[in-house]
């Protein structure tokens, strides 16, 4: 009996146990990112599990966002439970399926947030004012696609171990996302070039100016624009600051344990022979 217990403990995927517990804690561990305009004109803190927005001292509510965040919270708790079970019983036929259900969820949530708060400001600061050419974005997308194909071919030829195949799958998916981003940026450049040849300055009334300056990920910047105020012309300066919050650190730790758990997870014996 003693020997069996030791054997059982040795088989447990401990990375997965930690990852599963962290996933169940994560939705309640605080927000990941904050955005502030002025000193309380707009205060926004968010994570994939919730958002709090106040504008001019009033709380803003979106039913759709609340329900989607609730769905994400339930989904991550279920995924955490699945990873925990899969890690405790790694040789069961269902363990790999359960592991794969949630293993990369937090990773993609963290990556998506970083991408949004990088690409969004990039589009606002660099593409919206106009004058960008498509070349660099199309080239980026093409190089990305070539790399994905190349990696797939090399992986098929040289990677034999199940963990290396999983790792390569993740790398390929990240590369595909990068390709998608280049395509998105190319579309933005095309749309701005086609419909806003003078950039955002082309759509503001004559005599008005817009100078967009938004920080990315973390930092402070000020956007200025002119507007009519009671019949006169006024300049509006919007100080914008944003930054990552404590919850994001836990998300990164969780994502690392998730990836380790997934890459390491042996699964049932027949899976390992594949």
């Amino acid at each position: 009996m003693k020997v069996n217990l030791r054997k059982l403990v040795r088989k447990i995927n401990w990375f997965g146990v930690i990852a599963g517990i962290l996933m169940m804690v994560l939705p309640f561990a605080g927000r990941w990112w904050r955005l502030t305009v002025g000193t309380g004109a707009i205060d926004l803190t968010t994570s994939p599990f919730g958002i709090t927005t106040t504008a001019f001292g009033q709380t803003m509510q979106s039913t759709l966002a609340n329900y989607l965040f609730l769905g994400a919270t339930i989904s991550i708790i279920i995924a955490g439970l699945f990873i925990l079970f899969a890690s405790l019983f790694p040789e069961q036929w269902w363990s790999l399926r359960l592991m794969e259900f949630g293993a990369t969820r937090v990773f993609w949530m963290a990556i998506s947030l970083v991408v949004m708060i990088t690409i969004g400001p990039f589009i606002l600061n660099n593409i919206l004012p106009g004058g960008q050419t498509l070349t660099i974005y199309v080239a980026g997308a093409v190089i990305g696609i070539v790399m994905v194909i190349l990696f797939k071919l090399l992986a098929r030829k040289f990677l034999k171990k199940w963990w290396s195949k999983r790792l390569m799958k993740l790398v390929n998916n990240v590369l595909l996302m990068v390709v998608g981003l280049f395509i998105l940026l190319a579309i933005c450049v095309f749309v701005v070039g086609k419909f806003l040849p003078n950039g955002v300055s082309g759509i503001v009334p004559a005599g008005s100016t817009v100078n967009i300056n938004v920080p990315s990920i973390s930092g402070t910047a000020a956007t200025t624009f002119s507007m009519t105020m009671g019949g006169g012309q006024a300049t509006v300066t919007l100080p914008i600051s944003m930054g990552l919050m404590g919850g994001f650190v836990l998300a990164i730790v969780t994502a690392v344990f998730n990836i380790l758990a997934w890459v390491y997870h042996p699964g049932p014996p027949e899976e390992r022979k594949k």
Partner: protein
Amino acid sequence: MKKERLLGILLFLLSLALIIGPIIAAFSANGWDPKVTLLGSSNPLETQFGNLQNLNTSNMLGSPTLESFSAQGVTATIQVTSPLDFPIKIKGFSGNLVCKDHGVVLSSVQLLGEVEFSAHATKNISVLGTITQDGIADGIAHGGIPPNIGIENVSIKLDVYGIILEGAIGSA
């Protein structure tokens, strides 16, 4: 193999349900109204920025009263009413005091310091300036402080929750 595939399908359906379910629930909770579902029943950004259009001299400023008027300087008080639904801070205020009887500029005045206003508050602000040559002549013509004065070319710098609005405000 079959049960693995079945589990795969069930997990896929679970993922799908956790995305589609909340969307359907949110829309049905708001009577399938897309605007209310997305933005809620009130949008403070829309209402508060609309509010800024109320910033104009006829809404905000009362007639100035001269407190002192001499070669040493001009001091006047102006009654200012905030037309906004939220607190603001006047960080800068400048304009020309004019004699309404003779249409001459008496002094270019400005606010020293800052003044805070709660929503729809009214306060008297003190502005200071130096007298112009026309002002001296107007004072002599009136035999003292001109009785009927106004303020023109008003420029204002407002702090609205850290957003800085700066410029000339109109009279409409």
